[in-house]
């Protein structure tokens, strides 16, 4: 798609040619994820996580469609229908655990994917739209995951719905009417559950649509790479198939193995036991926390305890949404022309500080709000915003980056010429095997 040397699709079978002339779908696939998409040859394993996110989106859609065949979105029947899936439906336990843990794994791989982009500057020109579309996907994922968590109508479902929709009530004047409008009642009830189910079914397909735009936008400049240096010529790239299909393939197998470890041996490790108690609108669980993937944001929400011009509640909600929205402006906050963190000695240190800060926020988000925890959340929240709004712009102004390699190929070879050919296409390293073995 992106480079002049991209291999055109050449149908081998007459039937494939017949099909391609009428509907060039095979050509599209070939150009997008086949031999026709040249990819930098030096990608490391952090570049596997986009494909993994796609795999987990697929797992979520497939298992979700199947679960919807058994689930009732009625306040009287929802909890029991989930128990019915767990106990009576053939392989129902497997499908539900696959869906619940699939959500966690979708977030794990997406977070690694996002931090990969933060480290390697994947949000910089010419990939700004790729990054922003990715953030849109992330926001849609959060909405979908939240609504999905409400569906079993357990205690955490119910009170999660109460708390999250409560965010909207922080908005001055229209907040409370808006919350009532969104819930279709004064508290989460049948109207809320039914609309959440409807939207929970819809949004994954919206995500899939934005994923297509995300990949489309990516394939215009082509994938970034660990050096951040632009692709110069054909030597810098390998065709996606078979090189990266093979690499993505085996790695996907490994990650799915880890997923299965959770699925079969500790399926509830990432969930909350309180959600196995049916929803009770008259009693809030003692310790209410969101799923682990929302904990850093929950900490930011809880960090604001003092009214300052605006009410503390509104500050919390604004900061929480702001923590994601500011990522849309990352391209203009980090003006350094060097993409890869490997060549930015100061940026690299602060990047790892940010990772530690987000993990700390996650820890604080999961704790009961004691004075210490609140103080930690406040410091960590302050640092989070300082990183993006103060530190990053300053670094990009004053940092002296390390010298970049002249090309991807040069950075890969370290001067060893014999390594220059992709495996199997030219003579190999070992001199004794250099001659083509025509004798077989």
């Amino acid at each position, binding site marked *: 798609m992106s480079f002049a040397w991209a291999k055109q699709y050449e149908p081998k079978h007459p039937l494939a040619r017949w099909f391609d002339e009428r509907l060039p779908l095979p050509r599209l696939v070939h150009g997008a994820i086949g031999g026709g998409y040249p990819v930098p040859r030096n990608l490391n394993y952090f570049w596997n996580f986009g494909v993994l996110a796609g795999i987990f989106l697929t797992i979520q859609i*497939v*298992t979700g469609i*199947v679960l919807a*065949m*058994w689930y009732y979105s009625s306040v009287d029947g929802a909890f029991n229908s989930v128990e*019915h899936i767990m*106990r*009576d*439906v*053939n*392989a*129902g336990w*497997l*499908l539900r655990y696959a869906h619940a843990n699939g959500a966690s794994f979708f977030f794990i791989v997406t977070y690694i994917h996002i931090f990969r982009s933060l480290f390697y500057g994947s949000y910089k020109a010419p990939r700004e739209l790729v990054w922003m579309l990715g953030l849109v996907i992330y926001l849609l994922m959060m909405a979908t995951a939240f609504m999905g968590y409400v569906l079993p109508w357990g205690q955490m479902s119910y009170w999660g719905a109460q708390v999250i929709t409560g965010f909207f009530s922080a908005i001055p004047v229209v907040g409370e009417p808006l919350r009532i409008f969104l819930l279709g009642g004064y508290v989460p009830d049948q109207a809320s559950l039914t609309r959440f189910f409807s939207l929970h079914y819809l949004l994954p397909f919206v995500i899939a649509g934005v994923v297509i735009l995300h990949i489309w936008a990516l394939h215009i400049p082509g994938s970034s790479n660990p050096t951040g240096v632009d692709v110069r010529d054909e030597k810098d790239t390998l065709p996606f198939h078979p090189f990266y299909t093979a690499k993505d*393939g085996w790695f996907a*197998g490994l990650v799915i193995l880890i997923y299965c470890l959770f699925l079969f041996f500790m399926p509830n490790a990432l969930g909350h036991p309180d959600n196995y108690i049916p929803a009770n609108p008259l009693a809030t669980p003692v310790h209410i926390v969101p799923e682990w993937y929302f904990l850093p944001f929950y900490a930011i929400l809880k960090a604001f305890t003092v009214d300052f011009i605006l009410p503390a509640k509104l500050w919390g909600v604004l900061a929480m949404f702001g923590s994601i929205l500011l990522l849309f402006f990352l391209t203009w906050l980090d003006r350094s022309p060097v993409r890869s963190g490997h060549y930015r000695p100061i940026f690299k240190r602060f990047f790892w500080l940010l990772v530690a800060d987000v993990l700390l926020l996650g820890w604080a988000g999961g704790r009961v709000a004691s004075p210490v925890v609140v103080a930690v959340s406040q410091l960590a929240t302050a640092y989070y915003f300082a990183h993006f709004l103060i530190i990053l712009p300053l670094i990009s102004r004053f940092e002296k980056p390390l010298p970049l390699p002249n090309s991807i190929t040069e950075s890969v070879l370290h001067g060893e010429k014999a390594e220059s050919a992709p495996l*199997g*296409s030219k003579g190999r390293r070992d001199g004794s*095997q250099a001659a*083509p*073995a*025509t004798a*077989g």
Partner: protein
Amino acid sequence: MATEAQSAEGSGNIHVDARTPAGSGTGEVRRRDFLNVAAVSFAGVGAAAAVAPLLVQMAPPADVLALAQTEIDISKIQPGQAVKTVWRKQPVFIRNLLPAEIQAANATPAGELRDPQSLAERTKPGKANWLITLGVCTHLGCVPLGAGEGENKGPFGGYFCPCHGSAYDTAGRIRSGPAPTNLVVPEYEFASDTVVRIG
């Protein structure tokens, strides 16, 4: 390299030579071909295994299968009466035949019927008056009339399907209309003289 691969194969008919470059066109199986086929087959088996739970979930769940056996007290059914009951959420007709109805059924030569069966074949030995059939027309699944008080029993005095006019006789056998076979006799046994266990 080559010797190691060959000993792993254990036979000479798959010749694996790591030195053969891609596309050498000798038509022999290369190590990479073998690895390719092995890896893709392995992934294929895994994918097929992953599809299995997606398919088996469609089958009846345990709570539905738990309804597969039902016991009915028949002590209150007078001769000439019939009751409708439910087995696997399907209607079942239990009919206490009158002697005249038994005679009428036995008088019909079974060989001339669309689905040849005698009344004795459709009841338990010594219990010829108890006709137990599914209340599901064998044409397209409607519930025939004739079990309830005052319902149209059709021209043969058994059951009559209002959907497309199939008529069954007093042994529940198809006599006229589009239905292909007799009303189905479910698997059942007499748990006692007054209790029937269906399923």
